[in-house]
């Protein structure tokens, strides 16, 4: 079973993403900010990261930049999810190492179809 790490400081968002992804057969873990995400991602390889931008302690850009520096860790794709829709924000997301940048609020099918695409699970 493929394992996805959902990183968001809002409990409701984590639960929403978890429900969508688990229903589609993925296994989901959660992290509340970029530091906790690093603590988890450096220990266990996930198949995909769903990353919020604005979070306390370490934001989504910071997490991805730091995570992408680790050449000893399996690098998996990351979907960045943000309330900010500006081109500047998107550019920052891609520069930090996101494979995809989506703007909140997310529709279940949107999250799921991109997840499948990035994981090569296209039916």
């Amino acid at each position, binding site marked *: 079973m493929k394992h996805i790490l959902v990183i968001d400081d809002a409990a409701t968002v984590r639960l929403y993403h978890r429900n969508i992804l688990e229903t589609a057969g993925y296994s989901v873990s959660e992290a509340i900010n970029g530091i906790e995400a690093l603590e988890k991602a*450096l*220990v266990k390889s996930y198949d995909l990261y769903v990353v919020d931008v604005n979070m306390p*302690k*370490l934001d989504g850009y910071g997490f991805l930049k730091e995570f992408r520096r680790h050449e000893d860790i399996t690098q998996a794709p990351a979907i960045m999810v943000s309330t900010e829709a500006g081109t500047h924000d998107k550019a920052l997301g891609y520069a930090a190492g996101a494979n995809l940048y989506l703007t909140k609020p997310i529709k279940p099918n949107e999250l799921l179809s991109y997840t499948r695409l990035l994981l090569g699970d296209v039916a």
Partner: protein
Amino acid sequence: MSSTITISDEDFLKFKEYFYRKTGIIFDYSKRYFVDKRLIERIEATESENFRSYFNMLRFEASGNELQSLVNTMTVNETYFFREEYQFKCLVNSLLDEITRKKTDKSPIRIWSVPSSSGEEPYSIAIYLLEHWAGIEEWDVEIMSSDIDTEIIAQAKQGHYSARSVQHLPKTFLAKYFHYQDDGYQICDELRAAVEFSRVNIMEPSEVRAYRNMDIIFCRNLLIYFDDAARRQVAEMFFDAMKAGGFVCLGHSESMSRISSLFRVRKFPEAIVYQKPWEA
């Protein structure tokens, strides 16, 4: 009188999320009985009417005292020799080697253990270095240990322990570094002389300021009891007390993700440890 207070599923979830956000500790459903029981204890102890009024008080109380009491009930804070031993393994197998590799002089390596409590942690570090680190032949190490409580420091300096406190020590070490005395175990003078104990209030910048150039700080199972602002400020004072490239070790149920963003997350085979960046 048996309790009439109940915790509903939704109460549990709400509490679980809040506690996770504050402490990083996750209670899944398998811990439900444990959590409910302790929550009900605290609801009764605070004479709250029900979960809702208790949760409301917990969340909005300015002092944060109730959250501290709750963390106390939900975690085991017992100190004994070789507690959380994996970190001492990390110290001798990974951290010290990295530190010595990057050192440019032969000055002593400085380790600070806070809080000292009754001394089990700093003495465990000393034993670990003597027994498990070959580098001790080559390097000097200073072990400092501080606490806010002068009585507990006196106890730590004395170094007399119960059987319970030494139960996780290998028998050979017990025989080598302790002798049986007055219904307990007295640590040897060599180790007593190896640790420098001092009193410090880590919340007070003017007191912490005297502590400098630390290579490694052990601060385990303390910050989890502090509120958000206090634990961040303490971590930032640690930052100032450390050399660039130095390491902070936290307790097993603690995470820097709830404390400060100034440190880098480092993964070693034995443990996750936090590092003051070299660039700074």
